């Protein structure tokens, strides 16, 4: 490839290699960074996602607290054991973390009670106490009644909330309407694993209660109040693991739970439960290998994306390389063409030059010599002219710069004249032809003639001297004109058959050492295309070649 250096055309493999290497380094680096990022991200998730788990797991509790608890008030003190039992049943069914409900069917009145709260003239005590729960036997539902007071425990949930009620009524401002949150907090008591709730009476009743603190009203009013104490079991909270791939185990543990054996192989975190469960926490634990799995599953799509990106870059590099290669081959073809053309032009020019020199140096020229030189000059000038015409016509057709003429020709006469002209040129050329199906044909005779000349010239050129034969057939098949040019020449190797219609392509062999530029078949193809036809070739090496031209039949 000496010529490449000269023309400044270079192919730098090391540049491409450097590019590939740099890209690969970048690829590896990004994979590494992506992995580290995934790891950090998942570790952060492990700590932050616990809030979501808590939120979802505690939702039933919030629901219970905000929706179900106030339902006790809906009954406005009219709850009795049967209604309370059915209410509690719905609670136990809907909220499994409620383990037991103690119902205090109570009264507010002016007469002191023995069990309950007496402050001033205001008395608040239970009539009956019931307990409900899935594990409570029928005979122990009723805990307390006026006849049987033994199960009333001083200082239990009832008295705590009763005291709260009494102090609230004491400080109640009767001139303004208390807001709902204030009422809720004063009529409920949230303790560890226990919520006590007293139905919120209307403002009217609260005002009467306030009066009852100081005065005995006449007639003595009796107001019904329902208190319910919900015993909660934190271990019954249904944990909703929204990230099962992140948290291997989630457990409810007392706030003080802190195991010693948390080794390096485990990741753990915790979050405290709200409200009545505040003595407990959600404890999250996952083995490192479990978390690694999650890291990998997070990393994988990122790695895939990087890989795809890298693949595309490599593909683009390859395509650029391929284009460069093709361009280089094109360049070589054109270079060869210039070489050939120079050579082609050189022969007639040198002949003209020799003839010119001879004429110049000769003192006298005989008539014969004069005729000979005249003939030589004329022929060589024709050759040059022909070469230039061919080059010009090709360029014109390629650029579609000429117009298609439409003349009616007699096909037999047309072939006859072609054959005639070639016989004149090459007396050893054996021509045969046949026509069937049609006699006249509308086409551009100049272009068709040029096509015939080229193909005939090729057939002559690429045939060994003893087999310079050409058979032309013209047929009308299915409304199309089909020409076949069959010779017995050297044939075309099948590896080259796809290239023969390319510009400047020549098969290197003994038959085209001079006078060939590799334009002939490319020119033919352009012509056929221009005439809206098709050209195909079939060939066997050393047997012969058949060109088939299909042209539209315009009658």
């Amino acid at each position, binding site marked *: 490839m000496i010529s490449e250096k000269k023309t400044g055309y270079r192919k730098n493999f090391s540049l491409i290699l450097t590019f590939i290497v740099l890209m690969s380094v970048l690829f590896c680096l990004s994979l590494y960074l992506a992995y580290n990022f995934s790891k950090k991200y998942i570790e952060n998730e492990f700590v932050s996602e616990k809030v979501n788990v808590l939120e979802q797991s505690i939702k039933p509790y919030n629901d219970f607290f905000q929706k179900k608890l106030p339902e006790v008030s*809906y*009954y406005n003190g009219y709850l009795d054991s049967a209604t309370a039992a059915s209410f509690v049943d719905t609670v136990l069914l809907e909220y499994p973390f409620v383990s037991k409900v103690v119902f205090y069917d109570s009264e507010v009145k002016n007469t002191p009670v023995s069990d309950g709260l007496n402050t001033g003239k205001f008395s608040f005590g239970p009539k009956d106490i019931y307990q409900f729960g899935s594990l409570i036997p029928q005979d122990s539902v009723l805990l307390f009644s006026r006849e049987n007071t033994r199960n009333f425990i001083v200082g239990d949930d009832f008295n705590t909330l009763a005291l709260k009620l009494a102090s609230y009524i004491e400080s109640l401002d009767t001139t303004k309407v208390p807001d*709902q949150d204030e009422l809720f907090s004063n009529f409920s008591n949230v303790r560890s694993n226990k919520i006590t709730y007293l139905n919120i009476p209307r403002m009217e009743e609260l005002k009467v209660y306030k009066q009852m603190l100081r005065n005995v009203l006449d*007639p003595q009013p009796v107001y019904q109040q329902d208190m319910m104490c919900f015993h909660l079991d934190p271990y019954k909270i249904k944990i909703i693991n929204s990230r099962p791939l992140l948290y291997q185990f989630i457990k409810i543990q007392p706030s003080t739970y802190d195991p010693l054996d948390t080794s390096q192989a485990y990741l753990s975190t915790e979050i405290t439960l709200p409200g009545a469960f505040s003595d407990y926490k959600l404890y999250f634990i996952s083995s490192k290998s479990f978390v690694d799995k999650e890291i990998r599953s997070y990393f994988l799509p990122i790695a895939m994306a990087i890989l795809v990106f890298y693949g595309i870059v490599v593909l683009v590099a390859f395509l650029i390389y391929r284009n460069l290669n093709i361009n280089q081959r094109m360049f070589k073809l054109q270079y060869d063409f210039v070489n050939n053309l120079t050579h082609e032009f050189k022969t007639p020019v040198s002949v003209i030059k020799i003839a010119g020199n001879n004429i110049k140096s000769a003192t006298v020229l005989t008539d014969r010599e004069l005729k000979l030189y005249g003939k030589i000059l004329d022929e060589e000038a024709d050759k040059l002219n022909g070469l230039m015409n061919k080059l010009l016509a090709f360029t014109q057709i390629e650029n579609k710069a000429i117009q298609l003429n439409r003349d009616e020709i007699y096909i037999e006469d047309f072939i006859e004249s072609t054959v005639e002209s070639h016989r004149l040129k090459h007396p050893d050329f054996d021509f045969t032809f046949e026509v069937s199906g049609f006699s006249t044909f509308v086409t551009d005779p100049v272009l068709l003639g040029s096509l015939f000349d080229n193909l005939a010239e090729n057939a002559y050129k690429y045939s060994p001297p003893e087999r310079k034969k050409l058979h032309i057939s013209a047929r009308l098949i299915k409304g199309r004109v089909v020409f076949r040019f069959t010779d017995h020449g050297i044939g075309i190797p099948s590896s080259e058959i796809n290239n023969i219609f390319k510009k400047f392509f020549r098969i290197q062999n003994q038959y085209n050492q001079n006078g060939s530029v590799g334009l002939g078949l490319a020119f033919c193809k352009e012509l056929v295309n221009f005439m809206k036809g098709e050209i195909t070739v079939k060939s066997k090496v050393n047997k012969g070649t058949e060109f088939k031209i299909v042209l539209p039949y315009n009658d």
Partner: protein
Amino acid sequence: MIVYKKYFFLFLISLSFACQQKEGGARLIPLDDFFKSQEKITYRVSPDGLNISYLKQEDSALNLYVEDIASGKTRKLTNLKDKNVFFYFWVSNNDLIYYKEIDPAKRRSDAFIINKEGANERQLSRNEQGKMRVLEDQLIDDKFLLVSSNKRDSTVFDVYRLNVRNGAMDMAAKNPGNIIDWKTDSEGKLRLAVSTDGGTTTMLYRAQEGQVFKPIMTNNLITTFKPVAFKHDRPNIIYAISSVNRDKSALVEVDCNTGKELKVLFGNDTLNITEAQYSRKKQKMSFLTYETWKKEKHYLDDSIKIIYDDLDRLLPKTETQILSRDKAENVFVIRTFTDRNPGSYYLYFADKRKLRKLSDFNSAIREGEMSEMKAVSFTSRDGLKINGYLTLPLHVRATHLPVVVLPHDGTASRDLWGYNAEVQFLANRGYVVFQINYRGSSGYGKNFMSAGFKEWGGKIQNDINDGVAWLIEKKIADPKRIGIYGTGFGGNIALNSSYLNPGIYACAASNSGVINLFAYLKSIPPYLKTSLQFYYGIVGNPLTDADQMRKSSPLFQTEKINIPLFVCQNVKDQNTNAGETLQFVKNLKKRNVKVTYLENEGILFLAKNQESRHQFYTALEQFLETNLKNR
């Protein structure tokens, strides 16, 4: 020039749009026009027939005026700002008693006496002394007034003789604790009392004031026994409206010595007598009012018939009602109305047979723009005839229209034919308004009324649904555009419909609706303790009927409600628990149910709260527009 053309074109476009709106329906009447409060209300004639008094709206106060009929000279008696005269009446030719409002929500008021010149004003009762009711609006011995008051005990009313000159009160009869009503004879003697033990009412009678009351008959709470007056010549016989031993009330004479019914003056199985008028001057029954699809009169005295006939001649095709009269029964205050006209007040002089117009009830309403209220009836699924009223929007074909079902409020009440601003407002907005006197409504007899007891969310709901089915079958209703709206218990029905009958109603609206029957029972105030048993009967006993009550209390049923709701509550209403409605709305919003929630301070008192009324109906109109009409 081109610019002008452009503007002219724009003008044409806007004009065409403006015209389009009017097509296919009546003029859209501004909503405030429907609910305009009257300027002058509560006309009364003085006993001597020389003066006429009325309450006049002045900014946010109602003040008492007296007008001399002959000269037309008016005098302002009270000078209230931001306060209303709650109620007033003449006690003599010269004196009036009026109640000054203290707390409208609790209906608390102070009573004053004043003479027609505006002088000699004295306070008769103070709010702290409890409520005071006047039993007999005529002065005895020119200075005593018979009143009942709960000043001794807020839960019982004793009878006092109130000296209007110095405000002194002597107890005339002490209430043993269970008397809920007292009745005087023509001389103002206390001779009849009504007691109750919660489940039944007992009539107590005495022949002389000094004697003890003796029980003469006991009735259950759905039986009407309303003493009207003592018969003049036979002091032991009373006229009474009674449904004892019959389904519908009739006017009867009862012997108080035996408690036996002597004869039926008027009444039959098809009509229900609601009122009877006794003429003190003529000392006989003058006429009675009964309800069929509308109120009608039956005359027991020809002289009163002549007056009404004359009124019919002067005011043809109009319902008339006597609001007040003088002692001589010559000067009358008349109120007129039709279904399409809110009516006017007139002064009628019987001797001259002449009318003088006092004022219009609502001058903004034009009769031609109002819709006719048609009485309709259908048969419920269990074969009961249910009556109702249908109001169609004007100028549209009565097919496939959006419907607003309007169940009336309350136990023991009903819808009646007449002008109803709410109905006309909805009809003007293009809705068919369907009022149904579901079972439990009054006016159709005891059986019909008791058929509705404890049927909230049950058979009452079926009646409403059957009415809707009937309306769909008649092709009037568009089955996809049926809404329901009600106030109080009507609101309860509307909200119940949203979950008991999913699929029938597109939306439901409630104004101060009863969302919790338990809370409703709690709201019965201490001095109405005697009626608690009665309400247990109607609404349900919270201990034995808890399941049914829960089923018909929307508050418990938020999980099942899925249609758009409009909920308005009066936050000042001490009888409801504002927190419950808030909780109700909150629970619905959590489930992403479309709820329009509105708070106001009550639109019970038409004279006030123009603004909150406007806000309420604008919101309701908008709600119905998006969720019903344009669905």
